[in-house]
């Protein structure tokens, strides 16, 4: 059951010199007339036979852990299983080999997919309108902040600040800053929730929005969310929902019911699309009715007979991406939601939360949870409570053939281990994971510093990587 990484001293592609074997259709007798001033003299790409390309990437793949290799409990990343039916659907050339500017009558299938996903996301979030255009979660946040900015500009209000809890994902303050806002950080209280007094103190007539995720990055549901929404709205601000943690609440509650005005979804987390070693993601944005005209254009409408691409409204912030979004990711998320149905989605959230609480139960004797509140989709423990450093625990887990949690985040917990097991873990997976965590706590200091040793590479010199930058061959 334990992942054992392959180990090859695989050369860089440039060092493999078997000679290009790929053939394009034969060139016409004519030669291309290239403007002399622009003629390129030299080009040295790798020269590799296809069989060596195949072997190279096969060997690299065998040195890479993935969701299909085992449990992958990175906190806030929602690394759930990616169902294979979505791969099959996304590979259909009728969906895939379509130019985005084909006439509408010839893309009704793709527009139907987009329209149905817009509708599903509306229903899941209780928002009124959705744009599928943003290309990742952070891009959705940035889109949301652009909407906030334009909304207040149009109203002639000079609101320059965005309030963000100190437990927030780093993308939140970065996105608000990119849109030109000043960030006002509010601390969490002893329960791991937003400190209401601090929030009051942070609010003013400069407040444009509060960005928050709920449950938060500690896996805790903000019990005062309704109160928080009321306060922000009374102060004339907007409420932004970071959807990274949506997997905790599908069908149970929703950003719309909590009072949010803008929300982004992470299709590559909550809706099971594969993360591709870092991307592509997809970060659709949903808004309440009064903001629907601000969404990026175009969006998909349906008149009962035909699907069409239309401008979202006169107030639109315009374009956020080259075309309509990450369509193949949208398509996979559509397939997942359609397959799961309402009950399936709700069960996924219930199971994810159950799994988290079960794992917490197993390890909390040694690893003290950051806060006692009940957990939702994830939990944060401090490695210090087990007498260890978070990085050492992580490397011990690697040696035991599993993927470590997110470490050193959120920043408000010392030596944080942020664990999100998702619904794609059986009881025995969780028992085994807990077992490894408990063993890690018992390992003596000298040995744990030597971890990992079962992997293809031992601990890497990250300081050297940053000091002696080598970013290419």
């Amino acid at each position, binding site marked *: 059951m334990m992942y054992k990484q392959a180990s090859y001293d695989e050369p860089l592609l440039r060092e493999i010199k078997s000679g290009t074997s790929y053939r394009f259709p034969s060139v016409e007798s004519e030669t*291309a007339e290239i403007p002399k001033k622009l003629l390129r003299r030299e080009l040295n790409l790798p020269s590799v036979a296809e069989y060596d*390309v195949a072997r190279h990437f096969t060997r690299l793949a065998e040195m890479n852990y993935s969701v299909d290799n085992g449990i992958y409990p990175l906190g806030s990343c929602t690394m759930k299983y990616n169902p294979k039916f979505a791969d099959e659907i996304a590979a*259909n050339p009728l969906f895939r*080999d379509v130019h985005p500017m084909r006439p509408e009558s010839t893309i009704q299938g793709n527009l139907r997919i987009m329209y149905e996903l817009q509708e599903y996301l509306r229903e899941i979030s209780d928002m009124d309108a959705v744009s599928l255009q943003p*290309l990742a979660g952070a891009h959705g946040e940035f889109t949301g902040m652009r909407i906030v900015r334009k909304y207040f500009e149009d109203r002639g209000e000079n609101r320059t600040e965005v309030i963000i809890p100190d437990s927030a994902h780093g993308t939140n303050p970065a996105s608000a800053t990119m849109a030109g*806002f000043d960030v006002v950080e509010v601390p969490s209280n002893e329960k791991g929730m937003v400190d209401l007094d601090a929030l009051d103190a942070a609010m003013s007539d400069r407040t444009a929005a509060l960005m928050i995720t709920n449950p938060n990055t500690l896996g805790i549901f903000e019990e005062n969310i309704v109160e928080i929404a009321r306060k922000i709205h009374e102060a004339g601000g907007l409420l932004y929902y970071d959807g990274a943690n949506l997997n905790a609440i599908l069908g149970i509650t929703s950003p719309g019911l909590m009072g949010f005005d803008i929300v982004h979804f992470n299709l590559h987390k909550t809706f099971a699309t594969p993360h591709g070693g870092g991307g592509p993601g997809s970060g659709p944005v949903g808004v309440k009715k009064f903001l629907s005209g601000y969404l990026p254009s175009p969006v998909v409408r349906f008149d009962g007979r035909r699907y069409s691409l239309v401008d979202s409204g006169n107030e639109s912030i315009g374009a956020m991406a080259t075309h309509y979004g990450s369509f193949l990711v949208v398509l996979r998320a559509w397939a997942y939601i359609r*397959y799961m149905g309402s009950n399936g989605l709700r069960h996924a959230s219930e199971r994810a939360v159950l799994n988290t609480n079960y794992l917490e139960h197993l390890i909390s004797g040694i690893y003290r949870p950051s806060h006692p509140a009940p957990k939702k989709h994830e939990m944060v423990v401090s490695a210090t409570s087990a007498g260890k450093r978070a990085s050492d625990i992580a490397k011990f887990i690697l040696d035991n053939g599993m993927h470590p949690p997110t470490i050193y985040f959120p920043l408000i917990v010392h030596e944080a281990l942020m664990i999100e097991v998702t619904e794609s873990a059986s009881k025995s997976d969780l028992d085994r994971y807990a077992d490894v965590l408990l063993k890690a706590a018992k390992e003596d200091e000298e040995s744990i510093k030597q971890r990992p040793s079962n992997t293809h590479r031992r601990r890497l010199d990250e300081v050297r990587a940053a000091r002696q930058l080598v970013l290419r061959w």
Partner: protein
Amino acid sequence: MLEILGKHSTDDLFSDIPEEIRKKDFKISGGLSEYELLNYASETAELNRADGFSNFLGCGTYDRIVPSIVDHVLSKTEFLTSYTPYQAEISQGMLQALFEYQSVMSDLLEMDVTNSSMYDGFTALGEAVRMAHRINGKKKVLYPENIYRRKMSVMENYAHGLGIEFEPYGFEEKSGFIDLADISEKIDDGTSAIIVENPNSYGILDENVTQIEEMKRNALLIAYVDPVSLGVIKPPGSYGADIAVAEGQQLGLHQNFGGPFLGIFSFRKEYVRRSPGRLIGKTVDADGRDSYVMTLQVREQHIRRQKAMSNICSNQALMAVAALTYLATVGSEGIRNVAGQTIIKSKALRRELSSIPNVDASLFSGTSFSDVPVRIDVERERLNDLLLRKRIFGGIPADDLLLHAGGKMSSAYFFSVTEKTTNEDLRKLKEALEEVV
């Protein structure tokens, strides 16, 4: 597990969620079996069926040959279903692949450094404008007046928060090249960056692009290039680009209905600490063996928060692997061949269509790459109907596509070629246009 936790039901796990915000009805659908889902998806896909069409649509998204091995590599589950390589020891495969991507792309663009990907070409350009401002603190950005509307809009969204002022420069009427005198007049000490495109938004390989370097003063040169053209055309690094960006869709990705795409982002090495996005660096492990790891993360949002160089987190890693696989498979000769055929075919298109009365496919004396603007004196609806009836995709109106499409470009429509375009396609297009005018 519920029992072990001392809970009666899963509802107990959600007792902290106030009753007033509980979801009362949740009505998506009952869910489907896999078999039913696959059938429904296939039926939906059929609504896109368009057999026997000749495809002249391009303008940023191209129908190029994708070697079979590219999709094969992307479907490797260890690449497809892994996360960002935070735990480097068990992510050496992806890390090495991304290091190779950075290397091969830097070679293709002749730039010092390439990051491990941005979302798409347009957002990469937006980030480039932000990066130029971070480097020199200046606010004026010169851009080509014929830039695509959506590209401009994305760039404005990215730059809005910095208070950047955009000023357009024009093009020579006859050649379709950048108007150097116009740029020279508009550059001043407050200029942060000059954006050039090659090929430019008229689809013309811009022979004046190489002369911007000597007139740019303290401004940065941002080049937006077509990566396939670089098989035969001078790379941005050779004409002084400080930042080079590109849309990588053509390098092994299908048209994908507009996404996922690949944002290529390269720059001079002295600017590395001001750059956005993830970088993979080479280092050694505890035994001194070559290894790869994400580096300079201190520039990124998860550490630096509001002081980060960008908010980007998820990128297009898998698409970077596609581009790497494509370039490694076709090699220098292959990419030269594809670029050369594109030039040959756009020339043939210009020649064929210009023989039709009331049609002008040679609006500029400069050489076309993929996209050819064609002036056709006919109402848009009639042209669209006819093309559809004749089973031809193409004819993107310049008015819709370009921010500024006056003069020669009014009533122009874009028709694009790739190495897939056949003589038969060209004949079909010619016959159709003969009928309409």
